[in-house]
């Protein structure tokens, strides 16, 4: 019986882990083009979720709300790039770390005041009645999270491989200077990556909201775990984030079961520090060579 509980915990945890993986994937998108990530990505998840909720409250049907929410995420991502990242990249400084933290704080404060500090339910047409497989119960809602995560990641990977714009994206990731010499605008590619990253954040918000409810602090725990997943997997491995995301989700679900829910953040944080100490490039990442 105990084994069944463990299996149950692991499966539900893994579903949440996929959401961490999706947000971590958003970090990878911007890191590959610009070696920068948005430290306020959690606020993007949260604000997009609130916006999508507002669309629903205005009577927009669920399936129309999704593209609307994603578009909003793109706009937010572009705003972050323009206000917080571009100048620092031009100056080759690490000022973007502080600036993206600051912009995240601004979004947080705005959300607190516009939508209030309380958590709100997020309606969804997808059922949350449990189904049983081999004694483990799983809801269609959880399955929809998995489908959503893989759809978005798959679509972006396909875009990167099959379209000209996507190839430009890969070129800038591989070698920014060489790509510029070939007539690809690195600035615009970085913009594109931030736009996509914002869209990914919005998707994560829409997927996770029915499970966690929507509130200003909904993403603060989420984002720490997405950081862990991104760092443990390595900031350049799309396959890695999925594996690590599922692993971490299951691990923290078990931790909170055995040690109490207050400790559920701990494994991710410890893993992150350990990974940075032992393998700064991540388990699935490639080591880079220092050049002088």
């Amino acid at each position: 019986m105990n084994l069944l509980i463990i299996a149950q915990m692991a499966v539900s945890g893994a579903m949440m882990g996929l959401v961490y993986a999706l947000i971590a994937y958003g970090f990878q998108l911007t890191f590959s083009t610009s070696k920068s990530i948005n430290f306020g990505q959690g606020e993007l998840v949260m604000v997009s979720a609130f916006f999508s909720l507002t669309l629903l409250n205005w009577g927009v049907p669920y399936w129309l709300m999704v593209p609307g929410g994603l578009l909003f995420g793109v706009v937010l991502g572009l705003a972050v790039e323009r206000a917080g990242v571009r100048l620092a990249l031009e100056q080759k400084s690490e000022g973007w770390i502080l600036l993206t933290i600051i912009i995240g704080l601004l979004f947080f404060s705005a959300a607190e005041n516009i939508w209030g500090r309380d958590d709100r339910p997020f309606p969804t047409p997808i059922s949350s009645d449990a189904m049983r497989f081999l004694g483990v119960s799983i809801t269609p809602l959880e399955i929809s999270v998995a489908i959503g995560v893989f759809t978005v990641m798959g679509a972006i990977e396909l875009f990167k491989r099959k379209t000209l714009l996507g190839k430009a994206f890969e070129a800038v990731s591989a070698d920014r200077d060489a790509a510029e010499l070939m007539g690809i605008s690195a600035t615009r590619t970085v913009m594109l990556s931030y736009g996509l990253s914002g869209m990914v954040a919005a998707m994560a918000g829409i997927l996770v909201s029915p499970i966690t409810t929507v509130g200003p602090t909904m993403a603060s725990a989420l984002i720490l775990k997405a950081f862990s997943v991104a760092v443990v997997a390595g900031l350049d491995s799309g396959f890695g984030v999925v594996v690590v995301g599922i692993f971490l989700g299951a691990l923290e679900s078990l931790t909170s079961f055995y040690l109490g829910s207050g400790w559920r953040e701990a494994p991710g944080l410890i893993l992150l520090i350990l990974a940075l100490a032992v393998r700064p490039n991540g388990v699935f990442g490639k080591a880079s060579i220092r050049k002088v």
Partner: protein
Amino acid sequence: MLKRLLFVQGTEIIALLLLAAIPLTVSNSYVLGLLTLLAIYGILLIGLDVTVGYLGQVNLAHAAFLGLGAYAAGLSVSLLGFGMLSALAFSMLVGMTLGGLLAFPALRLEGPQFALATLSFSALSVTILNEWETLTGGAQGLHVSRPIFFGHTVNAQGFYWLCLILLALVWMAMRNLLSSQWGRAFEALRDSPIATDAMGVGTYRHKVAGFALGSALGSLAGGLYAFNFQYLQPQGFTYELMVILLLGVVLGGRKSLWGAFFGASLIALLPNLLSNRFLFLVISAVGLLAALGAGIRGLMKKTTRPFQALAPIVAMCLLVVGGLFVKNTEDWRKAIFALMLFSVVVGLPEGLMGFASRFLTQLFHIDPPALPPASALDKVLPAKTVDGGPLLKLQGLKRYFGGVKAVDGISIMVQSGQIHGLIGPNGSGKSTAVNVISGLYSPTAGTMLLHDRPLPGGMFKVALTGISRTFQNLQLFSELSALDNVMVAMKGVYRSPLPLVLMGLAKGEEKRAQADSLALLELVNLKDDARISAKDLPYGDQRFLEIARALARKPELLILDEPAAGLALPDVIKLVDIIRSIHERGITIILIEHHMDVVSELCDVVTVLDGGRVIAEGSAAEVKRDPKVIEAYLGTENVAVTADVV
């Protein structure tokens, strides 16, 4: 000189006396509380400035160290019965230990990863403080009683004076430390970790030491915080506080004690500032005017990019408009921090105090402290007699990058006292070979012997054996002055132990380092530019400065990696003279160069590399005639054509 003493030290003493005297004239407990908080935040921000300003890392763990120090002090009183001073010392020790531990893994990390490591650490700390309920009382909070101080109970006024005295002590100690070799080393590793190791300064120890020190100060402030409020909750030390602390340091001005103090007064007063709407409007209007003034001036002079000028103006406009229309400014607290911080980071990266000190220095014509006369060059670099024996032996040295055989089994013997040229077409493996010798890359195979002893691994250890180098792509400590660039690398001068440095009793060796460094700057004709920061020097002078810096290591073997690259002809002539005079002092030189005239003029022996292998060796004239060398540089002539010509 006297003017400087009067202004700089005088202002500090007057400020201290004023702060100490306020409670004697104003007996308002609210004001006293604010002043106490100001002193505590002052210590806290001076600590944060070590990592954010001097080490140049975004440190998100400082609020956690405040909390850990506070709990350590509180618990040491209630559980161990510590007195005031021992409890504060204990909290410092906790901060230093945990800070050092965190810095060890963080040591290999750069910007974003470092920020993430500290972010995780602080979230983990709050989790532990929350969940370890038997010890910390968890979310219920912890009541702390103010312990006795040498047998006396301490009232609010006495406690304030204690905080103020500690602030003054920290202030003095940090000023001494940061103006010593330690402070220079911190800044050096911020600007170029690679060169910090290559100059034998040690990135590793200074990063750990700097972080441990900053964290210790944060925890000391935490101890005072605990005894001031006498009630602690884990929620008090979270992310929001961290952002406020960063606001204080950045707005006040990095790398400045006054900046930290100013930032501390700002964050101590922040709650009042936000609750009083009129005051808030006045301040945001002043901010808008400042942004407008600075922005327009910057745009007219074309010193700033349009974004740098416009973004703060837009942010400040938002602040003013928001201040007029928002119902309750308290609710928008975070947005207000964000807008203020954004404007400062973008528009005034040096902070208010950085700006003010520049302005005041110009206004009162305060000269920097006078420099001592330069030492005699013979004292700094005594001429060595050369025995001519083998110095460096490379045997079958290989370095592969994946499938790329950058260096593929080279054997070279460098005789002491010679200038040994290393030439070859681009991609022939010269720079890789040098990077392997100097310890940046570990060899894939082969041995390297210096005086028949194997070279250690790692740049820092190699630097200690007496090998010094310059870099093909300049690795100067760009924000340090030319003089400081040389001083930071100076070998054999800094001997005082840390306590003496903290007490300001190491000024003698500082003077000597200055004098010796000036002699080296004189050698490369940069003596008159000693106070100019490296990044503002012309390109050619930057190359010469790297040579002077490498000489400060008093090397036995000096490796010059393409020193003439990009130099104009007059500078090339200067360079040849400089290299010659270095050689006359008995220093062995490995010279990597593309300018064949420089090589022929200077080198005793030339080794030619191609495709990671040695293809020729001999005097410059010999290798120039070598058909294999000609082939490597110019390619083979078409066989048929050759036949025709013959």
